[in-house]
Every structure is written in C-alpha cells, then in structure tokens.
C-alpha cells in the first residue's frame, strides 16, 4: 500500500479526540465490527493509530477512503460545534430574556462569541459586550469580561454546560494579547513566536554583535557575562517570549528581618502587601534583567515560572 496514504490516515486518526473515535470510525464504515472489536481503545493514541492503520492496510485502503475519513472528521467536528453554539445561546436566552449572542467561526476549530447583556426588562447594551474565544478541541476558553460584571457567573455557567464539562476554573492568567495567552496555555511558546517587534529585535542583536566584535573593546567580566547569558538562555530559551503586561504578587506572609526589632518584625499577623510588575512586554523585560546588571542570575523562580505555570497573578502565603 502507498506509504503516503498510510501516513495520511494515521495523522487524521491522531487528530480525532478519543471521545469521538468510535463515532467517526463507525460513520466511516470502512473497518468491520469484528475488526473494531479487536482493537484496544484504551491504548495510547499513537499506538492505537498504528493498529488502526494496519487494519486499514489489510482491507486495502485507497486514497479515496482516506479522503472520506477526513470529510467525516470535519463533519462531526462541525456538528459538535453547532451543538455547542445552540446550547450556549439557549442557556443565556432562557436566563435573560434580553441578550444578543453572535458567533463567528475561525480556523483551528475555534469560535468567537460576542454577548451583549440586557435584563428581563431592558434591551441589551450593545456598547458593553463580553467576548469569548472558545477552542472546541481543548478545555480552554479565553474571555474578555464586559464591564457589566454581574453577568460573569452566568457566562461561565453557560460555557460549562454547553461545552459538556463539569466545572469552569478561572486561571490566574491575564493579558491583552490573545496570541500570547494561547501560546502559554497551549504550551506553544517555546517555538519561534511571531511578534510585532521581531524586526527591531533583529536590529538590536546585530548592533550588539558589531560592538562585541571590535577587538579594541575588552570585557573584563567575560566569564561572569557568559555565565549570566547561559543561565538566562537555560531559563528563558532562545525564542521570543509571549507578551504579558503584568505580574501581580499578593503577599500574605510574616515579615522576616535579619535585624532584631523593628516595627514590622514583631507582628503575629501576616503582612499584606501587593507587588505589581508592569511592562509593555513583561517577560522580555525579565529576560533582560540579569544581562542588564539589574538582577542576579538566576532570577527568582517566582518570576521565571510564569509561562510554565500559566499564571501571572499569584497569592503567596507562608507555608
């Protein structure tokens, strides 16, 4: 059988969420009931896909069959999405007589939702809508809450029910840049990430290189500089960071002081303190702290864990 067809089928199967696997295969109707029964669906997807491809080869699968499988996947996807949309809209309309819900499909199995809120007696306010970006294949939704805050619980409830999940958890991750939120949440930030500033970055890097190449400039602290550079690379990687504007740390910890006494040291209650870092591009700024000589390398893990933990709002308590 053709290698390319086998590969195509394998990749198509890998894209199918496990919850829909049986539905799709049955709809495709290429593999018999008996064959499907011999397959262990609890395996890891990678090896399940390989098993299914072997069965397809036994049946002499052709490119046409593979194409049909692809269409069925699309179809089932779409119908799921339609179900979500109608369910979501119904929930909101049942709760609030006056609400405007608009959908816009985008690529990558995602949908933009716009909600304008009204009340039982008032028409929806079109100037203060909420926006949601929902990725149907993932358990994530990105929400821009409207200024009419009282409707937030209803919105969350509608999302939970319509997407057939049990609960919704609000992540401590906020930013104005949807692409950055996506990169962090889908763990795609450790690749070369397109930003608006990529042109200026290149220029700066080139300038730095020129200066450092001149043999008349000697860096006395070369060893330390290199160490700082290496440690920064290890922590932040070589790629552009996702774009966040804030990191906020709410501290509820006891004040610790090396000096004896002092007004703050004697207290039993924890000190409540809020530290907020803001920047047009926070993670890039943190990345450049050590090489700019403003902070020691390695940086505190509280700062460097932001993309990996997917949080930029922290609450810190004494253990």
């Amino acid at each position, binding site marked *: 059988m053709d290698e390319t067809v086998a590969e195509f089928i394998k990749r198509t199967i890998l894209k199918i969420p496990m919850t829909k696997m049986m539905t799709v295969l049955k709809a495709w109707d290429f593999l018999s009931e008996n064959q499907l029964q011999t397959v262990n669906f609890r395996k890891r997807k990678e090896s399940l896909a390989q098993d299914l491809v072997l069965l397809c080869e036994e049946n002499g699968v052709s490119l046409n069959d593979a194409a049909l499988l692809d269409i069925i996947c699309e179809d089932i996807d779409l119908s799921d999405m339609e179900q979500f949309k109608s369910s979501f809209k119904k929930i909101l309309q049942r709760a609030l007589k006056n609400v405007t819900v608009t959908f816009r499909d985008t690529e990558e199995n995602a949908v933009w939702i716009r909600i304008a809120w009204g009340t039982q007696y008032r028409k929806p306010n079109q100037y203060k809508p909420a926006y949601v970006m929902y990725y149907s294949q993932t358990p994530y939704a990105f929400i821009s809450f409207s200024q009419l805050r009282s409707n937030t619980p209803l919105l969350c409830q509608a999302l939970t029910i319509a997407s057939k999940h049990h609960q919704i958890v609000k992540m401590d991750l906020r930013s104005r840049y949807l692409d950055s939120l996506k990169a962090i949440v889908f763990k795609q930030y450790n690749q070369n990430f397109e930003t608006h500033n990529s042109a200026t970055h290149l220029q700066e890097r080139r300038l730095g290189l020129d200066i450092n190449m*001149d043999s*008349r*400039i*000697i*860096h*006395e*602290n070369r060893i*330390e500089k290199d160490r700082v550079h290496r440690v920064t690379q290890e922590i932040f990687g070589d790629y552009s960071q996702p774009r966040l504007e804030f990191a906020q740390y709410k501290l509820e910890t006891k004040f610790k002081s090396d000096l004896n006494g002092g007004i703050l040291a004697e207290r039993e209650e924890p000190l409540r303190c809020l530290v907020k870092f803001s920047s047009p591009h926070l993670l890039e700024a943190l990345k450049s702290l050590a090489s700019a*000589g403003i902070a020691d390398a390695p940086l505190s893990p509280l700062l460097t864990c932001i993309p990996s933990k997917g949080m930029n709002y922290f609450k810190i308590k004494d253990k």
Partner: protein
Amino acid sequence: MLKEDCASTLKVHLAQSLPLPSNVNRPRIDLIVFVVNLHSKYSLQNVEESLHHVDATFFLGKVGFLATGAGQDNHCSIHRNTVLRLAHTYRSPLFFCDLEVEGFRATMAQRLVRMLQICAGHVPGVSALNLLSLMRSSENPFLEDV
C-alpha cells in the same frame, strides 16, 4: 569612542565593578570612567565600593565620573547632589550625559577621547594634572574646597 578620529591606539575595557580579575595581562590604564546610572541606587553603591580598589595615583586627573539618566527626572532615585558630592570627595570631574541620546553620546565620547589622550601623555605640554586643575577652576563656586 572608538569611532572618533584619534592618532593614538585606543582600547576600552568594560567592567561591571572593581577590582578587575587579576590573572590577566593588561596594558597600562590611562583613564577610569565610573558610570553611575541615576535611576539605580545599586549603580551608585557599586561605584562607591569599586572606588576603594583604585590606586591613589589615579585620582590625580585619571578618574572621571559619568552620570547618566538625569534627563528622566521621575526615574531618578539618586539625587544630583549625591554624585556631585562623590565627585568632589574624590577630587575628580563629573559629567552628566544621557547615554541613551545619540547626540549627547557622541559629544561625550569626543570629550572622553580628548581627555584620554591627555591622560596618556599623548598631548605635548598638557598633563592629566594640568587638565584637572583647569577643569576644577570652572567648577561650581558654591562647592567649598575642604
């Protein structure tokens, strides 16, 4: 500084603090410029500590202070007078120059190269000490010489 037209061979050593690593062979040092970033208390602290490692002979005209960041007043955590006092204590000239600004940077570089040539003894008839006393006589009159 390297872009300046200069008959002498110019080398610049960049260091984060003093003392310099001792296991390296270096040509003679003719001028030390301490750069203080007015936005950072740490910068001043670093310079103050580094000054203790400088041999006394340098302070006869071969040390200068360069304060940057004065243009952004709201970012300054070090008062102008603090650096003025520091420079006065060490009897050395102080320059204010916002290194971020291309024009100021170029002018400052020019001045430093001229100063460096004198300190290296490449300008006949003028020594580092001459230059120092020349500069001092035009200093702020309200700073008293102790």
